[in-house]
């Protein structure tokens, strides 16, 4: 409660002070300069001021009324003093303000920035990638991160004894009942490709899908490996999908992400779930293909793996490979972020040092 309110209350409580208080308030409120407040102080609190009259009045009261009246008088003095000080501050501030308005301000003083948050750099890159494919007519789907072997390997045409399936390369979930002889078939997905199978199982072509998410591999952690990483998987299944369309799609993507002058090349490669398969390079955006340290003097940067969906994958989801064809591609988001922003160590992404995060 402010001083003014309390003063008004005091005047209601002590009829003898009513007129003094009301007069004081009106004097103080009437002040418009520091001269006024100096005069007001003398008039109210000065040796010949109103306060003196008040205490003189109290001394003439009956003895039993004096203590209460004295307390009220003291409170009146305290409140008036505070009110005067407040008024003076107000006047000073307005003088200051007026003079500042006249003088101009030091515009080089730091501005008041509301706190600014940041999207994580990996989220930003994922959004960029996803946005490009949305503009090409793709829908966004996600899937579980803890997966069945069936979706992660088997339905993706991975041979039973593929090294990627080993305990050295893939994280498996411990069986709930160690006595039961179940195969180790629950794992942390090693890529986002299982979404391909899940979507194809639940829907019919045409499918144009992009699926960002986390994947896990049991790599020893160093500058280019982390046990968890982000991938974006994309695929198209329709009548008459061709490898030429895959190539054109990736060209559009590379130019939108890395700049309009980029060219793309496909190198044959091997993946169990696509055939023909390719690794895709984009011409180095730092040197335009001339060769520099970023592209290790090759002029090219590897950005993703892709291919035509293998007919064996279609047979797992009951699609007729004679009727439908499709392409799929997958890229590592960290790798793209590292290339795009010249980040040399993947671990920065997951340390979440605010100083690092605020750079992007």
């Amino acid at each position, binding site marked *: 409660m402010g001083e003014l309110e309390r003063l008004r209350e005091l005047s209601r409580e002590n009829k003898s002070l009513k007129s003094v208080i009301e007069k004081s308030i009106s004097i103080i409120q009437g002040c418009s300069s520091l001269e006024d407040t100096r005069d007001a102080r003398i008039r109210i609190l000065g040796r010949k001021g109103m306060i003196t009259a008040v205490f003189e009045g109290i001394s003439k009261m009956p003895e039993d009324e004096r203590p209460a009246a004295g307390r009220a008088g003291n409170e009146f003095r305290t409140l008036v003093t505070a009110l005067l000080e407040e008024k003076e501050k107000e006047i000073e501030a307005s003088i200051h303000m007026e003079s500042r308005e006249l003088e101009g301000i030091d515009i080089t003083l730091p501005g008041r920035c509301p706190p600014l948050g940041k999207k994580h750099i990996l989220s930003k890159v994922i959004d960029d990638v996803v946005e490009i494919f949305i503009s090409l007519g793709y829908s966004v789907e996600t899937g579980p991160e803890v997966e069945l072997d069936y979706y992660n390997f088997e339905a993706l045409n991975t041979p039973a004894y593929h090294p990627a399936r080993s305990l050295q390369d893939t994280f498996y*979930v411990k069986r709930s009942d160690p006595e039961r002889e179940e195969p180790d078939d629950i794992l942390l997905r090693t890529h986002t490709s299982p979404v391909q199978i899940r979507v194809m199982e639940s829907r019919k072509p045409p499918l144009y899908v992009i699926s960002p998410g986390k994947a896990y591999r049991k790599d020893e952690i160093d500058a280019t490996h982390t046990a968890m990483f982000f991938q974006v998987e994309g695929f198209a299944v329709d009548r008459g999908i061709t490898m030429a369309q895959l190539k054109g799609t990736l060209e559009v993507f590379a130019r939108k992400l890395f700049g309009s002058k980029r060219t793309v090349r496909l190198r044959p490669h091997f993946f169990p779930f696509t055939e023909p398969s390719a690794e895709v390079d984009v011409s180095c955006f730092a040197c335009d293909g001339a060769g520099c340290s970023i592209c290790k003097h090759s002029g090219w940067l590897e950005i993703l793996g892709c291919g035509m969906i293998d007919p064996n994958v279609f047979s797992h989801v009951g699609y007729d490979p004679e009727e439908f064809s499709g392409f799929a591609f997958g890229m590592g988001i960290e790798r793209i972020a590292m290339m795009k922003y010249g980040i040399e160590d993947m671990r920065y992404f997951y340390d979440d040092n605010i100083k690092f995060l605020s750079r992007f």
Partner: protein
Amino acid sequence: MKVSLEWLSEYLKLEVEPEELACMLDLSGTAVDRIIRIGTGLSGVVVGRVVEVQPHPNADSLSVAHVEDGSNVREVVCGAPNLVSGMRTAFALPGARLPAISTSELKRANIRGVASDGMLLSAAELGIGEDTSGIIELGQDVLVGADIHDVLPVEDVVLDLEITPNRPDCMSMIGIAREISALLNLEFNYPEIEIIEDESTYLDSVKVKVGAPGDCQRYTARLVSDVKISPSPSWMQRRLMAAGFRAINNVVDVTNYVLVELGQPLHAFDLERIEGKTIIVRHAERGEVIRTLDGEDRQLDEKSLVIADSSNPVAIAGIMGGENSEVTEQTKNVLIESACFEPTSIYLTSKRFGLRSESSSRFERGTDPIGTSRAARRAAQLISQISGGRIALGEIDIFPGKKESIFVELRPWRLNELLGVEISKTEITNILERLEFKISSGETLNVEVPSFRRDIEREIDLVEEVARIFGYNKIPSDLPKGGRYEAGLSKTGKIEREISNILIAQGLFECISPSFMQNLDLTRLRLPEGHALTKVVTLLNPLSETGECMRTSLMPGLLKIVRHNQNRGNKDLAIFETGRVFFSAEGNKLPIEMDCIGILLSGMASSQHWSVSQREFDFFDLKGIVENILHTLFIGNYSLKKVERPFLKSGRGSMLQVEGKDAGFLGELKSEVVEAYDIKGHVYVAEISTDCLIQAAGEPEHREIGRFPGVKVDISIIVDDGVECERVENIIRANGGELLESVSLFDLYKGTQIPDGMKSLAFSLEFRSFERTLSDEDVNERVDSIVSALERDVGAVLRKKDEGPSGSVRQN
């Protein structure tokens, strides 16, 4: 696989530059890791003959050798363990240039008190190989004093290739020659194999039995007798070194040479050390042990395929030989094994022993069952050529896994349809024939697959073959046709993005932490046994860095981020993470995955500034941030209830209920929890289920704003300190009638001016009618009923009613 171009020129005439060749291979599926130029800039090195070796007077590990350089004998200090008198080796004279080890020229040196007039070289020092274990041992055929360039093709270009797992046929010189020939439309030749068999040597005495036909498709053996073991000729040594092998002797080197040349792994046994001169391919018996060539004793089991003699295993089939049958300097009669083993069996055994070799890496991908005989003949030819042995008449050949050729139908139009190209039938035929496919052409192509291409079984496999030789870069660019109507983010995706955006807009940093957690985190969070957050999904094979289970909460990750930042001087933190948490599910196969939002505040709420004073974050910052999410998503039906959680300070935790369902919590962490994570200061956290918010999210709705002025009334009441603000606010709303538009608390006071145990709450109420300007009576009536309800329900005392600065009802 390392391919020496000098060696490769044995099979085809290369007229392209190495860089161009590398680029072509790269673009046809054989990735080139590096182009290695060896031997360039080497000078001043001659063939030296070691005349005499004496111990070094001052060093046990060194010797002093007298080496003949063609005209003089020089004294040289050398530490190589294989230094013996009589050997011929690479001898660098003072002034020599050895780019593999130094940029300056070789000088005379004083080594531990003995002057060394030159240097004897290892393959690595010479720059032609990787072997540093001893000095290079040249054949006895080389002329002492000859320049090393005249003896060895020292200068060479080696391509280091990365062969994909589906192409074991490319793990050989011939395989690469075939690829290049297909790419350049160039002739290539297999090595000429002519052998002279000696009818007087018996192969009859040798018996081979394949006891495990499922794991051994073919076993071919040849015998070469009366060999003389010595170093192999320098040309062979140099090629092997360029391919990354160590030269051993003229028999073992031949087996390695043929392995690289033809891709067929071979093994040479000393026949005299094979008991009963009997070879049995069988599975090991439990308890059998073999000491392999690397000196390790290996415990065998029923799953391991071995080569045994009549009593003991003599090799782990396809992976590594045993010491007991190894070719030594005394060996006279060599039995060459050229077999084809089942890839899976080799893969599993090699994995079990953690033992990979040049042989196993080829067998586990699948070798050519037809090629064993040729490789055995080639090895016999080379051994007899360089070690003077006699080749026994005939070969032993057991072929239980013989299969018919595979024929695949290829429809040219289908190929063009899938690739989006127009390649003529003639061109398709040409490409496939250059890869040694046999074609009979009709409307479709009937393609016979060569036995070394175990990867080709279906039409699509042939499509890929044609595409990669035709060139992926000649495929035009196109885009899929047809419209897609479901494009874009799902509703869930949109809301998730909106949540992130509103948090970022409120000054929070998005963080991403690994999805793992340690069991220790459960203890740090003080979770009692059976608590919902202890239902973890445990990993069978975690990494020590990751933690042994999947996270059930975003808190541990966020707290580790706080520690990481505090340790680096970043003390003021407003961070959030959106991500999955995982709970083990009984009955269900897969765990339950839940998307969550974790928010954490710690330190100062604003940065230092010349015009404002700083204050620390508190619970109400957190609450405001969370409420802003709810408002952004148009969720009106929510409430916060006081709640106790094992990790939250008592009386300072709150449960968020959205549409009556538990959606998460907000609160201040217990100091014990904060300390357990080595963090300093107060930490406020919220963790909220994204799904709950998505389900409750509403749509904006337009409501009339009102043309008539509203009336603001401030009331201030004194109530018992235990009465919750929300309760008071609810009473105000319930009694304010439909004219009451908004209620907001603007002051809270406890202190000397009011009695102990009480608090003063000051609310600003705004009344508005959509039909007319409100009169004082309208408002006073409502305020009076509010005040009397407050007096009745929570024992409130009206402290003050303020209807504007000058006593009149304030209008705006």
